[in-house]
Structure formats: structure tokens, C-alpha cells
């Protein structure tokens, strides 16, 4: 090797570093991490709904969901599972996928990073609940934004007829999803199950959505029929409490999953062929037993009870007052929302399971309940709410003041329906919207223009009707003015000319009782030639004889009390369900029917 003086001397230049100040961090113990640092977890427990998406995405199974009941200062809210994530720092890898998927944006990582302990069992904590000193740190990892999202926050747009096309006909205007759209929509699901818990029927929503993704409609139908025998109907008109709590739509600016449309999509894919249904659901052969059950009313509760009882082998007979099955679903809901052939599709299948139905039989007059109890082993009553409730304001007895229930029924049965040029509807519920929009269509047919005003006590945000119903009604030209309380039907010269209303300030008083307060200064008169009341329905219990009425117990507002097996208290063979217990709601009716069927099964088997 040749001798090179440069190679010996040059390295010594490194000594020039000795005069430089050390670059060591003076106090490493209090050093702040970067603003985006993924340190220890914090959870805004008030915001969190315990959906468990974090648990699902955690690849290390580091997250458990633990109940927070009894923890001071934390209240559970609607759509809140009552659970909160607890994190095992013996598993966590601080990838922050839990933060990125968090449906409520409640979970975040602070930039704290020091946790030293001698006991390995201590490293489990519930962020936001277990007191830790890093919660006050503002900085840390949050969702990055800039187009970064783990699931789409926007619902796939459902195609429907334009308001101008639909407002003059009763043709179903929601077109339904195509396969591609349905899959895309189904893809948004995080399978948290809050919908399942909220749904009265506890439908296996995540599972059937998964079936949509997998394109396995038959499996989807099986799941639907496990808890709901009326998928076509429910897929259209369900009150979708599931969507209200859907964790995907929890955050501002994001839409909940359209669970209802996906259900409809599954049901729509199967053609209306009873044999195919039986084949698919495996109900071709049902071992029959000799027990007989009478079912009063063919509404959702009755049909549901009949379906599940038939599957269990019971001989069911439905007694229906009206000429066609379906109850309120057929006679209360306009066909632009629920076409009759879809009702028939579901009903036909249930009837094909060996359910007998007797139309135009009015229990109480044509046949007494006592007679039924003798002829049958058990009776299920799902008679529903078919009586309109009046506001009882001055002028409401006028003949041009109608009940929405009656009008809707008349539209279906073909009985003449009075249509005036100007219509005022009192009520802000779904039925009110139905009648509003139905009247609008009739007006279009008759006069070529729409002039309907609907008003409700509740203000815009608290209207009980579904949001899209209100929007669609407005699209169709109806005027909806929420927040006013009706005071008087203005009658001029014996004719209804309008409705006088006051601005409603509050509906309930401090005790929570119904006691609306009005601002008398803000008075308006809605002009109208007819007024339709749609503020709720009442039940018709005329089929109960006095003897039976004396045996069973009644609760407040005339409701029949039932025990947890849905038996009327006092009469073990009488099972009650549907709207007369739960109020007007199709899914509750279906759930009641299902439970009723199971209770009847239990009741009839106990004797053996």
C-alpha cells in the first residue's frame, strides 16, 4: 500500500467538532412529540356511541368494548350501545386505524407517549373514562382528511321519479337500486350491529347487507325471513329506526346507510313465485300439528304471527274485516309508496304456508271472540289502529273536516274521496304526509295543480315524519308549515274556509305532559276548503265483549295490558300485538307478531 500523508492527516479534521456545542436535547423528559404524533388514546365519551368499529378494525384485538353504566358524568344517548372501547396496551401497535375508522370522530390519539409501570396488568384502560393525564393534550393524531376516508360518507343516490312526473300518479316513484348501486351502498356498512339492537324485530341487518355485497340474494332472503316475513313491504315503508341510529350516518355531513332500500333490493331480486320462495327458504314441507290458532286482523302483526305459527306447524286462520289482506299497510299507505302487488307478493307466500284467511269477517259482529276461543286453542289479536283521532278544536265537527285514515282507506277501496281546491292537513307525522301527498295527487288529477298545506305542532327539526317524506312532499308542491297549533276551523257561511293557527312555542311542559304553549301574537290562517285531521289514530276495541273486557286489564289511554309473553293480563289464550300495543309502526307490528307466535307456541306446548 502506497504511503499517503493526506490519508493520515485528513481524518484529524474531525477534531474541529470538539469546539461545537453539544446537540443533545437538554431535557428529554418533557419533550413534546410532533403535532401529528400517534401517542396514547383519548376518547370523547360523550360523543362516542360504542359502535365497535374500532374493535373490528384492530388487527391486534387490542380493543374491548366495556359497559360504561354507572360511570359518573357519562350519559348514553339514542343510538348509543352503552359500551366504550377499552384498550389493551399489551396489544396496541399505535397504527391509529381505530381513529381513522371511528364513525363519530370521538377517538383520537394524543401526542403523549410515556407510560412506565411495574405491573403489566395495569396497561388496560378505557380512554376518556380512566383518568389519565394526557387527555388535556390538544395535539395528536386525528383523521387526516384530504380525501382520506375508510368508507364512503355519502349514500348512493336512489333514483326516483322527478316530482313533476310523480305528483300526478300513484305509481311507485322510488326506483330501487341496481345491483351495482346496492353493492356500493352495502359496502359502506361497518357491521356494528347498533341497527340490529335498535330494530324491534332485531333483523340481522349487517348479515343481509353482507349478503348484498356477496351477491347472495337467497342467503339474504333467509336472513330476512328469520325475523321479518314481510321484506317487500318493510323494504319500502319501514320506519327504519335502524337508519336513525346507523353509526355510519352519525357524524354531521354523512348519510346513514339506506338499510331499507337494501332490504328492498334483496326482496326485489327474488321473483314473485311462491314455489321459489319455499324452495329458497326451505319451507316446502312443514310438519303440521293439530293445534289451531285464530288471528284477528291481517296487518303486519297478524301476518307475522301467522307466518311464524305456520312455520311451527300450527293451523292458523286469519279473520279480516276488509276484503283484502294487509291491514293498514294496504289501506293506510298510498300505493306510490307501497304498490299493492308487492303486498300481494309477501302475503301470498305467507298464505301459501297453509294459512287460512277469511275476508270480510268482522270479529265481534260476524263471530264473537268467545266463539273463537272455543274453536281455537289460542287467539292472536292484531287489530291495529283504524280510528282517526280528532283535534276537537272548534269547527272540527264540520262535515268537510275529515280523518286521514278514512280518506286513505277510501282511496284504496275506491270509495269516493272528496277533493277540494285548497286542502289543509293538520299533523306532522308520516300519515299526515301520506294524506298530504295523496291529496296533492288527487288535486293534480282533478284540477291540474297542487294546493295543500300541512301544519304541525312540532317545528321543522322535530317533525315526527321521516325527513325524506317532508322533502318529497315539498318537491311535489305541497306546502308544509311546521310549528303551528290549530285553534279553530274557520267556517264561513257553513263552509270550511280555513284553519286558524297560533305559533307553537313548546309542546310539553316541565313535567313532560302534553301541554302546548302558543304565541297568540303570531296567528295565521291557512286557507282551505277542507281540513284533514291526521294527528294520530285510535283503536277500535268493539270486538271485545263486556265479559272479556271485565276480565282483562287496561292501562292508561285505554291500552290493553299484556304480560311479557304478550298475553292479555287475565286471559291466557288471548295474545295481543301490533299497533294497539306499540303504536303505529309496521316493524313493531312484525316484531310483535313474531314474539306473539313464539309465546303462543310456548303457551300451547306448556299444556302438553
Amino acid at each position, binding site marked *: *500500500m502506497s504511503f*499517503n500523508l*493526506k*490519508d*493520515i492527516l*485528513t*481524518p484529524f*479534521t*474531525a477534531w474541529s*467538532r470538539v469546539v461545537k456545542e453539544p*446537540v443533545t436535547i437538554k431535557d428529554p423528559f418533557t419533550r413534546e*412529540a*410532533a*403535532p*401529528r*404524533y*400517534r401517542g396514547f388514546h383519548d376518547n370523547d365519551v360523550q360523543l362516542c356511541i360504542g359502535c365497535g*368499529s374500532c374493535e*373490528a*378494525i384492530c*388487527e391486534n384485538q387490542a380493543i374491548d368494548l366495556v359497559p360504561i353504566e354507572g360511570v359518573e358524568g357519562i350519559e348514553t344517548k339514542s343510538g348509543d350501545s352503552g359500551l366504550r372501547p377499552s384498550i389493551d396496551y399489551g396489544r396496541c*401497535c*399505535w*397504527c*391509529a*386505524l381505530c381513529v*381513522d*375508522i371511528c364513525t363519530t370522530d370521538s377517538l383520537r*390519539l394524543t401526542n403523549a407517549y410515556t407510560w412506565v409501570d411495574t405491573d403489566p396488568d395495569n396497561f388496560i384502560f378505557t380512554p376518556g373514562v380512566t383518568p389519565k393525564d394526557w387527555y388535556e393534550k390538544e395535539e395528536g*393524531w386525528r383523521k*387526516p*382528511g*384530504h*380525501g*382520506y*376516508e*375508510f*368508507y*364512503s360518507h355519502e349514500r348512493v343516490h336512489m333514483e326516483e321519479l322527478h316530482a313533476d312526473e310523480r305528483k300526478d300518479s300513484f305509481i311507485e316513484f322510488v326506483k330501487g337500486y341496481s345491483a351495482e348501486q346496492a353493492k356500493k351502498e*352495502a*359496502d*359502506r*356498512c*361497518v*357491521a356494528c350491529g347498533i341497527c340490529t339492537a335498535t330494530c324491534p324485530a332485531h333483523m340481522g341487518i349487517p348479515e343481509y347487507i*353482507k349478503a348484498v*355485497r356477496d351477491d347472495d340474494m337467497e342467503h339474504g332472503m333467509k336472513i330476512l325471513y328469520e325475523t321479518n316475513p314481510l321484506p317487500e313491504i318493510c323494504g319500502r315503508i319501514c320506519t327504519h329506526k335502524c337508519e336513525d341510529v346507523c353509526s355510519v350516518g352519525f357524524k354531521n355531513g354523512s348519510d346513514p346507510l339506506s338499510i331499507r332500500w337494501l332490504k328492498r333490493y334483496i326482496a326485489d331480486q327474488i321473483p314473485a313465485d311462491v314455489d321459489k320462495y319455499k324452495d329458497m327458504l326451505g319451507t316446502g314441507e312443514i310438519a303440521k300439528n293439530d293445534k289451531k290458532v285464530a288471528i284477528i286482523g291481517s296487518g303486519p302483526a297478524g301476518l307475522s304471527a301467522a307466518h311464524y305459527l305456520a312455520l311451527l306447524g300450527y293451523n292458523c286462520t286469519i279473520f279480516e274485516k276488509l276484503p283484502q289482506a294487509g291491514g293498514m299497510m294496504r289501506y293506510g299507505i298510498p300505493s306510490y309508496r307501497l304498490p299493492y302487488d308487492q303486498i300481494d307478493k309477501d302475503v301470498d307466500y305467507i298464505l301459501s304456508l297453509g294459512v287460512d284467511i277469511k275476508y270480510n269477517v268482522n270479529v265481534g259482529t260476524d263471530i264473537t271472540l268467545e266463539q273463537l276461543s272455543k274453536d281455537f286453542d289460542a287467539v292472536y289479536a292484531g287489530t291495529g289502529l283504524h280510528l282517526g283521532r280528532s283535534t276537537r278544536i272548534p269547527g272540527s265537527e264540520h262535515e268537510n273536516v275529515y280523518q286521514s285514515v278514512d280518506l286513505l282507506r277510501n282511496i284504496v277501496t275506491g270509495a269516493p274521496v272528496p277533493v277540494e281546491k285548497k286542502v289543509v292537513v293538520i299533523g306532522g307525522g308520516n300519515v299526515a304526509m301520506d294524506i298530504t301527498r295523496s291529496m296533492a295527487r288527487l288535486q293534480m288529477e282533478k284540477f291540474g295543480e297542487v294546493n295543500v298545506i300541512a301544519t304541525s305542532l312540532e317545528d321543522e327539526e322535530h317533525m315526527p315524519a321521516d325527513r325524506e317524506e317532508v322533502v318529497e312532499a315539498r318537491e311535489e308542491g305541497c306546502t308544509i308549515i311546521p310549528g303551528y297549533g290549530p285553534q279553530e276551523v274557520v267556517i264561513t257561511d257553513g263552509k270550511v274556509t280555513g284553519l286558524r293557527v297560533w305559533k307553537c312555542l313548546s309542546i310539553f311542559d316541565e313535567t313532560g305532559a302534553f301541554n302546548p304553549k302558543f304565541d297568540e301574537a303570531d296567528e295565521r290562517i291557512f286557507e282551505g276548503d277542507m281540513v284533514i285531521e291526521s294527528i294520530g289514530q285510535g283503536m277500535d276495541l268493539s270486538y271485545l265483549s263486556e265479559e272479556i273486557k271485565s276480565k282483562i286489564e287496561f292501562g292508561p289511554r285505554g291500552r290493553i295490558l299484556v304480560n311479557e309473553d304478550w298475553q292479555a293480563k287475565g286471559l291466557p289464550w288471548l295474545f295481543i300485538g301490533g299497533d294497539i300495543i306499540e303504536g303505529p309502526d309496521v316493524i313493531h307490528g312484525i316484531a310483535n307478531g313474531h314474539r306473539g307466535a313464539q309465546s303462543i307456541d310456548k303457551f300451547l306446548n306448556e299444556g302438553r
Partner: protein
Amino acid sequence: MINKFLGFKPDEKLLPSQTVTEDTEIDLSSHKYQKIWLGPNHPGVTGNMAIELTVQGTTVMRAKTHVGYLHRGFEKLIERRLFVQGFPTSIRMCVAEPDTNEYFIARSTEELSGYADAVPEYANWLRMLSLEMARLAGLLRGVPGQGGTFALGIGVQWGVYLRDLILDRFEELSGARVYHMYIIPGGVRGALPDGFKERMEDNLRDIDDFIIRIKKLMFHNSVFKQRAKGLAVITPEMVDKYGIVGTNARCCGVKRDVRKDNPYLYYDKLDFDPPTATDGDVYSRTWIRWQELIQTVDLIRQIMAKMPKKGDIRCKMPNVLNWKIPKGETYVRLESGRGEMGMYYVTDGSDKPRRINLRGPSYNHAISVLEHMLIGQDVADVHAIMVSLQTCPPEIER
């Protein structure tokens, strides 16, 4: 002159050395040989691995690489995880330069699910930035580290400090120091923070200064030259025979660089030329890496200048919890600091991969190449040779 006077030939060593090859017979029971273990508990091994050496005196007669001390079964574990869950796991397959593994998972899944072209441009530039930063961080340890193997510790101290500054930038960009978990299928997980470029430029200036200093310290150092020159030569014939890639191949004149050969991301938009050398020894490997250090600094500057100011960081993709990829297979490769890395990715239509298989350069470098090269070397050089081959055990056993 002096040598001649003393009767030495210039290139002859004072102490006689024997020539040992792979075929030299070794009779272990003859008591002429000793077995020693370099590792796993040994400061001289790169990471947690071991080399079983059979030595005579201090000459290595046989070497066997033992790995598996870091075996975690990643490939099995990722088979159990959703596609999106794969990337936090995969990143831990290599500690020193983890971003490459994230890129594989992201790129493979994107390619197999048809989203390869949907990744936003901004995200791809950020991916390149993070990959080059990782390379820089690796080189800042690796180049002076080669001096460190010969007990020139001071360069390592400077290098690791500067690496730490790069880790600070990583922390800003990705939210973590070492395991960045930054490149996600579909894009990246964070936009460039405000003022990042300025702070990065500050650090790059420090690194420029360091590059000069390390050149004076190592490459103009007579002792380093004596130790490193002629040590553990890789010949061009060996390259294909042993599957040598990256700087280890370039050190003997075989120009292999995935960034040039099969450009990925936007490497074809950057202006660079991978350095090569001809000697193939430890010195030229170090020299190439030093040149790469300059080049990487330059590349980072180019990337920061050419990248768009802002944009989306992730494309619209299916819900990560429900993401399924149709059946298929692919092989994705990139040039890491250690050479070509790649991943064989097989999907079977479910929401989890069927099989992933990482091909790390060390798989060949640390086993077949190292075992071959160590034969006949001095025990003192074993560490230097290991480091010069850039062995990284976690990517061997995974």
C-alpha cells in the same frame, strides 16, 4: 524503499496466511479448530442473528448463518388479517427501512384490485418522499456504520444524530418515529405539514456538511483503506449466481437498480444515475453508499421541488372492513437501500390475502453470500463484511 531494505515485498503480509476455500477439509475432532458463535448476543452482529464460525486461530474456516431469532411469522399473520390490517403488520418486517414493506402491501393490493391508477398523484409523490427519506435514514446509519465496524465510532455518532433529525421529519409527516405506517392501500395517511420543506431543507444542509465530514473521516483515512480495500470482494460472476442485488451488485460494476430498470412511482421523472464501482470490495461498497447518500439528498430535493402543492392523499376505495380482492397474484418490487426488495402477493377472492412472501435482499446476502465470503477471512473482519453486505435479519426470517 524501507520495505525493500528490510526484505519485504510490498504486498506480502508479515504473517503467513493460508488460503481457505469452501472445499477445505475440516476435521473437527482434530482439536485444531474451534467453534465460536458470533451472536445472537454480540454487539457485532447486525440485529438479532448469529453466525456459527469454525475457526482455526482467527481464520474462519466455515460459517453458518443462523436466523429465526426474530421470526414472528408475518406471512402467516398477514394471512389472518384484512387487507388494510396488513400494512401495520408488514412494516415491522424490517426495522431499518420499514416504509418499503408498506409500499408492497399497498401497491400489491391496489394492483390486484384494479385501483393502481386511481392513487392520487400527490399521494404517490408523498410515497416517494417517504421512501427516499427512509433510504436516507438507512444510509445515515449505514455509511458511517461501516466505519463503526472498524471501531471508527465517531462517524456513527454523527450519522445517528442526523438520522434522528430525519426521524423527526418522519414524525411530523407520518406521526411516528420508526414504524411510520404511512403508506396505506390507496394512498398515504397524511399531507405534507406546513413548513415541512423548510425544516427538511435545514436538515439536508446539515447532512450536506456531514457528507463532506464523513468523506474526510473515512475515505481519506489510511487505516480505513487498509482495512476495507480488498476485503470480501464480490465479482460480477457472483451476482447472478448468488442473486446479489442493489449496492452489493453495483460495487462490482453490475448496474442493477429497480428505480432505473423498472421505474415505479415517478422515479422516471427524477434525474439521477445510480453510482457504480468496479472493485467489489468493502471499500467500494461503502464508497457507493456514500455516493448514494449524496444522491438521495438530491432526490429528496428534487421530489420536494417537483411534487404538487396539495391534493387528495387517498383515492376512493371500498370500505376497508369489507374489502375483497378477486383471485390473482403479483410481484411488486422496489429498490430499497439494501437492494431490490419485492413481495409476492396472492389473493383468492376473500377479504384476506392468500399468501404473501417477502423477498428481502438479505435473504441471499446474509446466508449464501455471507457464508461464502467469510471463508478464509479473519474473525475481526466478520462484522465489517456483514455490515457491508447490509444484512438485516428480520427480512430473512420475517
